[in-house]
């Protein structure tokens, strides 16, 4: 242990601790901006670039960045001397002098770490008013992720996230000096880069330099268009997160209130993406069983996460025959709505607008892919995130706290516990196993909880005895973990039959469209808990038992894997992806 004194208080911490962490132990608050340490996803942003956290260390000639300075025995630290406070204020003024004063019209307002700091410091005028400000153009080329480099403060969290945690390598600092910024190679439009739209950079960006492309206006326009029938689907992970925006505890499921709110906003039908998840399980289980029994193209990789699928296509094109051809639940619900549901209701699909509420940025990209349109009509018209929906609720005066609990509309609103846990890492696999076991063995599965594949740690494995054959499965989340797994597959080291991969560490509960949180590790854990809680409440916990699904097959699709099913629920992607083979 190292002993030091911070603001006259003795502190004792293990060697290697930073001054910042040591100060936090005695509840001394040192402001930070670039610092970010997410142990749970191995993100350690060590740029020490904002210098807001500087403190005075006795005997040192300049101020020390507390977030990057390890403690030393006998150190004497002052965190709030006049010298420190005035330096911090000047630093903040410098940052603001190259930042638009757009808070009023900024997507990040009230969730912005920079704005918050300016507020805490009581900044009331912009300094260096005649100084040059950077003027980069806004990039919305991907339709999913929006870059507004003028709002970037060069904390480099996004770079660390994208390059080190996700190992995508889409972002770099570009240029240098005052003109430096962060973005894709050559500052090309993002759509030409190898970004997979996982949105994890959005989750860590302290400002609005990285956000999702918003579709609130389009959604309102559809809702207010009398010639349109507007239906909405809500992903599993949304229901355990949106409550946070209305003062519910982290991870608390608010499904019924969410449905009520959507109905009051004027949606003609409120569907559940979980229904699509169940449908995915049934289709995918069929495919898995077929491929496993025939030992064909193993392992089967799940395909419900578009972030992950993009990653596979861009970085491991030689493995692109491996994933299941099943569309994601969002696209299945979209496709079924615009066919089966429209037919049933006698609506011309042209007049049906499908909005989906997702925890995800990649789903925005996915929905816009030409592969997901039929006859020029996209299966999903607009994707809004959990955060966007919360804003829309607020705009239309809907406070979830005071909503009654209502149920989803039929037929695309019925779901099982298996579908709900899609929102957590390991959930897709667990759901599939519940179905596969029963399909193959013909026995009832007593204990549906495959706890071995749960949790956010590295790679989780399990084996399941299907009588004739034991199936080895693995689940992982976070693309850095996925990369390791795929490299092992390429090298022939890994011997799994089925693998579930989610781009976001922890799965969709931690998607790039979820409410921002200062306590990521905790919020992920609580949201996951919320999902398993719902799973536990459900009367049906196996996808194939979903009565509406059974109905759908009987009335419309026929068998899992039928031609009709293939036409609507499966997809092969074009090969026009950016060539990247980076590591």
């Amino acid at each position, binding site marked *: 242990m190292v002993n030091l004194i911070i603001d006259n208080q003795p502190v004792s911490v293990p060697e290697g601790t930073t001054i910042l962490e040591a100060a936090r132990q005695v509840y001394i608050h040192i402001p930070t901006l670039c610092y970010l340490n997410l142990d749970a996803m191995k993100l350690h942003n060590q740029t020490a670039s904002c210098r807001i956290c500087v403190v005075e260390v006795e005997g040192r000639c300049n101020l020390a960045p507390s977030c990057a300075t390890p403690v030393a025995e006998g150190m004497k630290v002052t965190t709030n001397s006049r010298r420190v406070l005035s330096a911090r204020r000047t630093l903040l003024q410098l940052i603001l002098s190259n930042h638009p004063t757009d808070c009023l019209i900024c997507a990040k307002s009230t969730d912005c770490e920079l704005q918050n700091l300016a507020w805490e410091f009581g900044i009331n005028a912009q300094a260096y008013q005649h100084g040059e400000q950077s003027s980069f153009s806004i990039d919305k*080329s*991907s*339709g999913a992720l929006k870059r507004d480099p003028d709002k970037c403060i060069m904390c480099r969290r996004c770079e660390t996230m994208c*390059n080190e945690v996700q190992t*995508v*390598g*889409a*972002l*770099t*600092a*570009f*240029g*240098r000096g005052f003109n430096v910024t962060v973005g*894709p*190679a*050559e500052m*090309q439009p993002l*759509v*030409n*880069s*190898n970004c997979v739209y996982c949105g994890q950079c959005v989750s860590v960006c302290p400002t609005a330099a990285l956000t999702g492309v918003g*579709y609130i206006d*389009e959604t309102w326009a559809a809702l207010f268009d009398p010639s349109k029938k507007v239906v909405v689907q809500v992903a599993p992970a949304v229901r355990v997160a949106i409550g946070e925006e209305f003062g519910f505890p982290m991870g608390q499921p608010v499904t019924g209130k969410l449905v009520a709110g959507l109905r009051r906003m004027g949606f003609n039908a409120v569907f559940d993406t979980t229904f699509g998840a169940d449908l995915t399980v049934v289709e995918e289980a069929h495919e898995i069983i077929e491929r496993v029994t025939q030992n064909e193209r193993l392992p089967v990789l799940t395909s419900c996460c578009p972030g992950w699928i993009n990653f596979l296509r861009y970085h491991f094109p030689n493995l692109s025959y491996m994933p299941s051809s099943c569309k994601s639940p969002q696209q299945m619900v979209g496709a079924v709505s615009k066919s089966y549901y429209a037919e049933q209701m006698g609506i011309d699909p042209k007049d049906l607008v499908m909005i989906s509420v997702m925890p995800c940025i990649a789903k*925005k*990209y996915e*929905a*816009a*892919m*030409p592969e997901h349109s039929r006859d020029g009509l*996209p299966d*999903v*018209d*607009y*994707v809004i995130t959990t955060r966007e929906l919360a804003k829309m609720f607020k705009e239309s005066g809907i406070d979830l706290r005071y909503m009654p609990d209502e149920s989803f509309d039929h037929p695309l609103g019925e779901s099982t516990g298996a579908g709900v846990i899609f929102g957590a890492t390991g959930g897709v696999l667990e759901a599939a196993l519940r179905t596969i076991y029963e399909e193959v063995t013909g026995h009832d599965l007593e204990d549906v909880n495959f706890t071995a594949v749960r949790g956010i740690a590295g790679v989780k494995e399990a084996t399941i005895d299907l009588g004739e054959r034991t199936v080895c499965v693995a689940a992982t989340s976070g693309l850095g973990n996925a990369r390791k797994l795929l490299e092992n597959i390429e090298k022939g080291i890994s011997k799994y039959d089925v693998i579930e991969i989610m781009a976001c560490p922890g799965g969709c509960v931690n998607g790039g469209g979820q409410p921002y949180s200062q306590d990521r590790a905790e919020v992920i854990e609580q949201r996951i808990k919320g999902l398993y809680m719902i799973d536990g409440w459900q009367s049906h916990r196996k996808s194939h038992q979903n009565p509406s699904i059974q109905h759908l097959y009987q009335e419309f699709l026929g068998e899992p894997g039928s031609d009709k099913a293939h036409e609507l629920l499966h997809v092969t992607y074009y090969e*026009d*992806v*950016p*060539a*990247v*083979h*980076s*590591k």
Partner: protein
Amino acid sequence: MVGSRPTQPTRQLADELYEQLDAYIETLQIDPDDPYRRETLIRSLHRAQEIFGYLPAEVQRHVAGRYAISHAEVSGVISFYNYFTTTPKGKVQIDVCLGTACYVNGADKVLQEFERILNIKSGEVTPDGQFSIESLRCVGACSLAPVVTVNGKVYGRVQPEKVQEILEHYLVEIDREEEPIHVKN
């Protein structure tokens, strides 16, 4: 929602040049699994710039592929160093030293004179692609300040009045080079 597809420009520079670059990169024996492989990246970029004259995106992507690193990473590195350029330079590359020794001896006036005569700014290329002007910081010939290098040749004690003279020398050279073309017409 509008779906836009990524556009990847096709390779336009000559295959021979890529072969030259590859021949060099081969000698480095890069192992994609070696975490230290980036160590030679800047060397390869130097070599690539020697071969192609500049480092456009297509060359960057090629280098990135050879190193198994992302294009963004290569691009970030290139954008950091003044020496690398992503646009072609003029046939006659004029570098005016703005190091301290040259500056206090009036190098800024020399630069202005080049800019005035060629009617381009530092960092630009004349529309005919013949001349480009850059400034650099000290070539180690401070005793001759102000110093200008033209295609690597060092000119010392350059005063604004000498600029025209230096340029004329190269104008003549270019004319001579292009004469055969005129004859053909």
